[in-house]
């Protein structure tokens, strides 16, 4: 069954450093998303991306965050200057079309630890 692949699975970084989280969505999917889950808390929406631009973003997705689809297969989330509170599991998701009806396929996540 097709999967959403995320790398790395774990990332430890020092506060203030830049990190790039990588995702390879399912090949025929057109809509891409990033979510995060702080330990013990709810999964939270960060951003959605379609047709090479951001469709919607949450309040969490401030100027420190950016997304990019640098080629036909990768979808990245960059955090420019990490803070301790950015420590969380970051999940990439994709959907072939309107995820309202089809649902979303999530990757296994990247555990980001900021020290």
């Amino acid at each position, binding site marked *: 069954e097709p999967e959403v692949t995320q790398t790395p699975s774990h990332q430890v970084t020092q506060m203030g450093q830049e990190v790039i989280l990588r995702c390879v969505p399912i090949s025929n999917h057109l809509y891409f998303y990033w*979510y995060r889950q702080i330990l013990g808390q709810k999964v939270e929406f960060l951003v959605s991306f379609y047709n090479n631009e951001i469709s919607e973003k949450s309040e969490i997705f401030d100027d420190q965050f950016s997304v990019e689809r640098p080629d036909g297969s990768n979808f990245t989330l960059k955090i420019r200057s990490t803070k301790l509170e950015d420590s969380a599991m970051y999940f990439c998701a994709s959907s072939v079309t309107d995820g*309202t009806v089809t649902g979303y396929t999530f990757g296994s996540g990247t555990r980001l630890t900021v020290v």
Partner: protein
Amino acid sequence: TQLLEQSPQFLSIQEGENLTVYCNSSSVFSSLQWYRQEPGEGPVLLVTVVTGGEVKKLKRLTFQFGDARKDSSLHITAAQPGDTGLYLCAGDEYGGSQGNLIFGKGTKLSVKP
């Protein structure tokens, strides 16, 4: 911001018992999705319900979307230890391609043999 309240938060039952998990909101959703999440993994989609009053069955799992599209339930018949896990409901706040899913906190189910 719409909120989804899930209950119960924790549920521990014996193999063979039936159970129901509830997901409630005061707001209307375009759709409701149920996911299962294992520790250290991403949510895995179980079902999407779109129409008010809709009922979907997935083997021993029955999902229902409330008539007013504000609530949903997951019923498991004859639970098995393999059903153990975290069950999440998630509502699509606006519909369309925005993907702004609102997640509940989840119900942690433990089924003992």
